[in-house]
């Protein structure tokens, strides 16, 4: 409870806003107390490492992989992309500011002028378009490398997604929350079915991760995305993962960086408020 009050206070100070959106504060508290009851022995900060907080064997394996991370070259490539000048002489710093450590944690946020949720990856694309550059593909490759580099420079900072006192912003948050709790697809699963109610259980050999702490470590490098048949290099954005989840339950995925997934990210990232960024990371 103290932590929430502190988080709420920080948010007020940071935004100069009059009040924190009550529904968001309630949701965060409700999820925290749910997991505290479900896994009383797991310390709050451990949720940042996802499902590995719940299984000692898998945690040892994960720690081993992190000693020689499979994604370092791609993060270095992301740094090159950050430093590269556009044809017009600008660069990503023109859009995001010179201090790369102050970028990741500003997203997702509400853009009051355009009345929409902005995400880091969405603004990377916007920046390219504004500067006449050919935009990256939306889910993997360059966009994930750049996002991973930017996130890595914010490691240790505390996530604090703010829903401002604006009915449109609150509606976007509620829309994302509804997406998370509504069953969908031919297999009739909600995000919450796996990542709240059944988290800690196994779907075949896969340990279902708790929603709390999901967004601390994105973009992620996943073993299953590195397989040759996936034609990828392992890296993917948060919205790529959303699409994968929706496909698994046999729902038609929404467009990466579209309104549905951006609103979902607004709610989803809120559930990691108070946790530290530690990105990128390895996942099965």
């Amino acid at each position, binding site marked *: 409870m103290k932590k929430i009050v502190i988080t709420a206070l920080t948010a007020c100070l940071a935004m100069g806003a009059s009040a924190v959106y009550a529904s968001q504060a309630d*949701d965060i508290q*409700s*999820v925290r107390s*749910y997991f505290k009851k479900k896994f009383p022995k797991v310390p709050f900060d451990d949720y940042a490492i996802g499902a590995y907080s719940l299984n000692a064997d898998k945690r040892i394996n994960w720690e081993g992989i992190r000693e020689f991370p499979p994604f370092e070259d791609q993060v270095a490539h992301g740094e090159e992309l950050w430093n590269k000048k556009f044809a017009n002489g600008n660069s990503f710093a023109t859009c995001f500011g010179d201090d790369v450590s102050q970028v990741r944690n500003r997203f997702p946020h509400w853009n009051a002028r355009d009345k929409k949720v902005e995400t880091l990856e969405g603004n990377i694309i916007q920046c390219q378009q504004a500067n006449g550059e050919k935009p990256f593909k939306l889910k993997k490759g360059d966009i994930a490398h750049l996002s991973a580099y930017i996130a890595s420079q914010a490691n240790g900072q505390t996530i604090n997604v703010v829903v401002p006192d604006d009915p449109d912003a609150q509606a976007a948050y509620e829309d994302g*929350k*509804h997406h998370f*709790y*509504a*069953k*969908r*697809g*031919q297999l*009739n699963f*909600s995000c*919450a079915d796996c990542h*709240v*109610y059944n988290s800690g259980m196994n779907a075949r050999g896969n340990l279902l991760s708790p929603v709390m702490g999901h967004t601390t470590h994105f973009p992620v490098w996943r073993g299953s995305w590195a397989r040759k048949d996936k034609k990828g290099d392992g890296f993917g954005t948060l919205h790529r993962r959303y699409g994968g989840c*929706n*496909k698994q339950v*046999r*729902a*038609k*995925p*929404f467009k990466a960086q579209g309104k*549905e997934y951006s609103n979902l990210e607004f709610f989803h990232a809120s559930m990691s408020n108070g946790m530290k960024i530690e990105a990128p990371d390895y996942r099965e």
Partner: protein
Amino acid sequence: MKKMTLIVTLLAAMMATSGLAVADEAAYKKLHAEAVAALDKAKSVKGEWRDSRWKKSKAVKCGDKKMSHLHAAECFAKEGDYKKAMKHAGIAKFQGEMGYEQAMGQKTAGPRH
């Protein structure tokens, strides 16, 4: 006389078959339109499923390609296989109806914790 009978019989048979084919095509087109309407309705409430008409779906094989049920219906119709075309148009329609019903049932979904 025998020749005459043969020709008449043949003609009658041809007319019957082409009439059947026309009837098949009409029934397929009607079902296809119903499937599209059902899927549009599901889409309007964000309730579309993966394999109904998503262009990257790999649910059904037609020729040497894999595709969604609606695309498969169109593919089989093109090949003149109206029986299979009807089957997959019917599945697409069913999925549209169920996706809509599901989304409406989930309208008030929220946390239960």
